[in-house]
């Protein structure tokens, strides 16, 4: 009886055993290929190696943007049991604030599981040492080296170079995700943004064998990343610093370019800021401090600041009047101190109340006589003004290879109807002659237009980067057609601005000028005051209501090597001295060089400098 039951059990066991064997056969033979593939997929993990971002050099090969190793505190979420407790303990070793934690949580959200997420960037040596000692207490917490963008001269080049920062959702969607695998930064502004595709490079890949917890055991295959291309700029770091220091404590901008090449020698907006803070993600507090600073350090006045060009427009108006045959080069007016439209009572005043008396074109420029320009503006009409000013590139973007630029505004009746829904009034033509009214231009536009005068009509495309790998050479330059005499009359007027004792820049330019300068001053009335400033105390309000000072210039007149535009907000006296400092810094070493010496020999207008000065 019992033995029968036992044998019955044996039969049942044999049947069940066959079930197990059938199952093993099913998995190991029938489904082997499929499951073996899954096992390989488990084992092998394709890891991206981020490319090294290209470097940015100035004209003399000095590094403006480089990559430096930064030691970051990272956390692998999946290897930590209690995140909050770990963070609390870590904060006893390393200074971790709320913002670090908030940033970490955001980054962790964007990172795939089992990958380390940075908690704090740029640990100090001391912090690294403290973490090393306590490393065993924190599994899943590591100190990792990473190449991080670094701007040695930070605020000196901030507005020109721009910066890189963490990729946001919008950028993530716009760009090819393949290129940005493993990279978490992207050019946000300036050259860094414009040349993103060159600087970025291409990520490489590593086939690694990794454990379920993401630990990498060995590398099976590797495709190296392609380092991003380097950029060589026309920018001169010394000149940039000179311009920045000249503007110290002021709100303003300087744009200087080489009229021959269009290369931007200096592009400065003051005040500036430390771009390095943005690379790894700026803290909320620091960012709002920068944003709410009434001096607006984040605002790139050089390319985004739209100012009334004021009297700096006068040389261009003069050329327009001559070329359109509105006036002859000997056209004179008698200035009583004001201008009246025929049949109107309103007086448009000269800046000098009592007038300049008999005034011809040259004198009108050097004295910055408003009455003369009211007169020729009305004679030309707004359509002619608009047409010629557009030829000088005003009212449209220059196309500088920098990410953000404003077009300014060159008004026309057609524009006013469209934008304001109002007709053009003759009085608006009058003030257009002195660069007021709706007219707006950026310092960059003014500098580029000044370069056209310096070149006697040859237009150059302003460029940050020298042609090179991935950077196309500048397009053939267009010619702004004017007769040779027209250029020389206007330039003579501009020389007088500085050289003539009654020229508007004569005294401010100072003594001992070793080269000839053609320039034009401007004083722009402040139209509106930023909303947030209104609540400040009266003294500040008063400060922000003062006129802006402008100055455009090129030098040396005979062989222009620099053309520039300077604006100093709420200070009409500073623009000329700033321009002097910049021009001196650029020209004095060159004036004394052999090249310059030979150049000046070939030019008849100027007596050669003493060879003894050759350095």
């Amino acid at each position, binding site marked *: *009886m*019992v033995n029968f039951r*036992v044998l019955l059990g044996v039969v049942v066991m044999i049947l069940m055993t066959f079930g197990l*064997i059938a199952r093993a056969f099913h*998995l*190991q*033979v029938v489904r082997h290929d499929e499951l*073996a593939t899954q096992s390989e997929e*488990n084992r092998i993990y394709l890891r991206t190696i981020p490319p090294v971002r290209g470097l940015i050099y100035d004209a003399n090969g000095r590094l403006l943007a480089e990559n430096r190793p930064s030691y970051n505190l990272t956390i692998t979420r999946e290897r930590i049991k209690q995140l909050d407790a770990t963070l609390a303990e870590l904060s006893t070793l390393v200074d971790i604030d709320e913002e670090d934690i908030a940033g970490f949580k955001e980054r962790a959200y964007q990172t795939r599981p089992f990958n380390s997420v940075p908690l704090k960037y740029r640990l100090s040596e001391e912090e690294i040492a403290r973490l090393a000692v306590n490393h065993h207490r924190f599994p899943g917490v590591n100190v990792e080296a990473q190449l991080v963008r670094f701007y040695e001269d930070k605020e000196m080049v901030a507005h020109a170079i721009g910066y890189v920062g963490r990729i946001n959702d919008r950028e993530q969607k716009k760009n090819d995700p393949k290129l940005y695998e493993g990279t978490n930064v992207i050019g946000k502004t300036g050259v860094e943004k414009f040349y993103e595709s060159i600087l970025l490079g291409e990520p490489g890949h590593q086939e690694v064998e990794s454990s379920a917890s993401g630990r990498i*055991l060995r590398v099976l295959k590797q495709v190296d990343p392609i380092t991003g291309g380097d950029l060589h700029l026309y920018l001169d770091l010394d000149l940039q610093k000179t311009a920045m220091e000249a503007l110290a404590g002021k709100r303003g901008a300087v744009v200087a370019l080489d009229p021959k090449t269009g290369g931007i020698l200096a592009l400065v907006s003051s005040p500036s800021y430390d771009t390095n803070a943005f690379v790894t993600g700026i803290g909320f507090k620091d960012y709002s401090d920068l944003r709410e600073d009434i001096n607006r350090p984040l605002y790139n006045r050089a390319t985004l600041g739209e100012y009334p060009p004021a009297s700096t427009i006068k040389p261009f108006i003069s050329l327009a009047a001559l070329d359109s045959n509105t006036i002859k080069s000997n056209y004179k007016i008698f200035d009583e101190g004001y201008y009246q439209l025929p049949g109107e009572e309103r007086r448009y005043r000269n800046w000098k109340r009592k007038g300049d008396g008999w005034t011809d074109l040259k004198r009108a420029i050097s004295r910055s006589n408003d009455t003369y320009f009211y007169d020729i503006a009305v004679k030309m009409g707004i359509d002619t003004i608009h047409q010629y000013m557009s030829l000088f590139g005003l009212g449209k973007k220059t196309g500088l290879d920098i990410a953000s630029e404003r077009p300014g505004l060159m008004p026309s009746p057609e524009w006013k109807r469209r934008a304001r829904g109002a007709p053009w009034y003759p009085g608006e033509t009058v003030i257009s002659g002195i660069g007021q009214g709706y007219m707006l231009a950026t310092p960059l536009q003014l500098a580029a237009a000044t370069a056209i005068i310096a070149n006697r009509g040859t237009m150059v495309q302003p460029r940050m980067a020298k042609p090179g790998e991935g950077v196309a050479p500048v397009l053939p330059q267009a010619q702004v057609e004017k007769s040779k005499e027209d250029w020389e009359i206007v330039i003579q007027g501009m020389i007088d601005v500085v050289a003539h004792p009654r020229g508007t820049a004569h005294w401010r330019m100072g003594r001992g000028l070793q080269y000839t300068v053609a320039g034009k001053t401007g004083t722009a009335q402040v139209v509106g005051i930023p909303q947030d400033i209104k609540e400040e105390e009266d003294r500040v309000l008063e400060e922000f209501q003062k006129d802006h000072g402008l100055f455009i210039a090129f030098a040396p007149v005979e062989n222009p090597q620099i053309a520039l535009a300077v604006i100093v907000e709420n200070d009409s006296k500073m623009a000329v001295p700033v321009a002097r400092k910049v021009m001196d810094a650029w020209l004095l070493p060159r004036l004394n060089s052999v090249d310059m010496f030979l150049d000046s020999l070939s030019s008849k207008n100027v007596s050669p400098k003493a060879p003894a000065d050759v350095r």
Partner: protein
Amino acid sequence: MSQDFIRQMDSDHNFGSTPSWSRRLHIDPVLMLMLIAFCSAGLFVLYSASGQNLDMVVRQAVYMLAGFVTMFVVAQIPPRFLRRLSPVVYIGGVMLLIAVLVMGYDAKGAQRWISLPGFRFQPSEFVKLAVPLTVAAWLCRKPLPPSFQDVALSLILIGIPVALIAKQPDLGTSVLIAASGIFVLLLAGLKWRFIIGATVLALPSVWVMWSFVMREYQKQRVLTFLNPESDPWGAGWNIIQSKIAIGSGGLYGKGWLLGTQSRLDFLPESHTDFIIAVLAEEFGLAGVLVLIAAYGLIIGRGIFITMHAQNMFAKLISGSVTLTFFVYIFVNIGMVSGLLPVVGVPLPLVSRGGTSIVTLMAGFGLLMSAHTHRNFLGR
């Protein structure tokens, strides 16, 4: 475990002769050799599954040694003495189970352990042997097949510890203990009408279990078993990864120490419940077949001993131990290969774990006791 095998074993023994050294030591040399060989081979699998942790292997070897000592000790106890001892063992076991529920050590959300200074054990393991012993002792008081009252009382004897263990909760062990008790009943000649009746009654009780007895995590295991892909990163992970491990092994496997699923930690619990997946990955179908054949030899020897046991008590005990051993294997391989829900049953003699090995070896001690004390028990 085929009939041929049993006959062959039969012819090896010469029962009329004077007691051999093995008989005097109450050791069955055939079973002994099989177990030694099997345990040694198991250590190699464990070495790989543990990530080449020699410490763990040495500890396991020590447990095995302890197991063999336990086996030897148990084998010295004559069956009739075991029969008398069983009520005490049973009551002690149940009291320990109650103690566990009251002051148990919390391990992975389940209270299974009793901690004494420097020593920790699971009373449920102890009860694994106490239940078949007690039921067998109870049934052997009267002629077989058992009456309805005896069956009912046996079911109560089985039910009390099973319920206590299920409450810990440890579904795997309670199923094994229920099986070991029921095997005694079945072997004792439980009438077919009881068997069929119980099967019919079992169906609604499944519903009762599901609705009232089973814990959430146990239900989750069953649901995951039915559809592991529903939760690939959570509860389904274990079974998906173990299937990948087994399947990727193919016919001959990836080679010893070369199983990527376990070495790279994709396979969870690789040195405990899921160790068969490591073996299947590294040695392939061939390895699985060898393992099953080896188990077959041990079970075959168990069946042989059962068939030749001289008294009813020894027979019932031997049969129950052998069949339960098979259930162990079946449930473990079934759950790891995705045939059964994951209930937490280790692979006997291979999975890491001291208590499990000691209990199993004690069970084999019972087999040896039944086999070697025959001469002293006249009929």
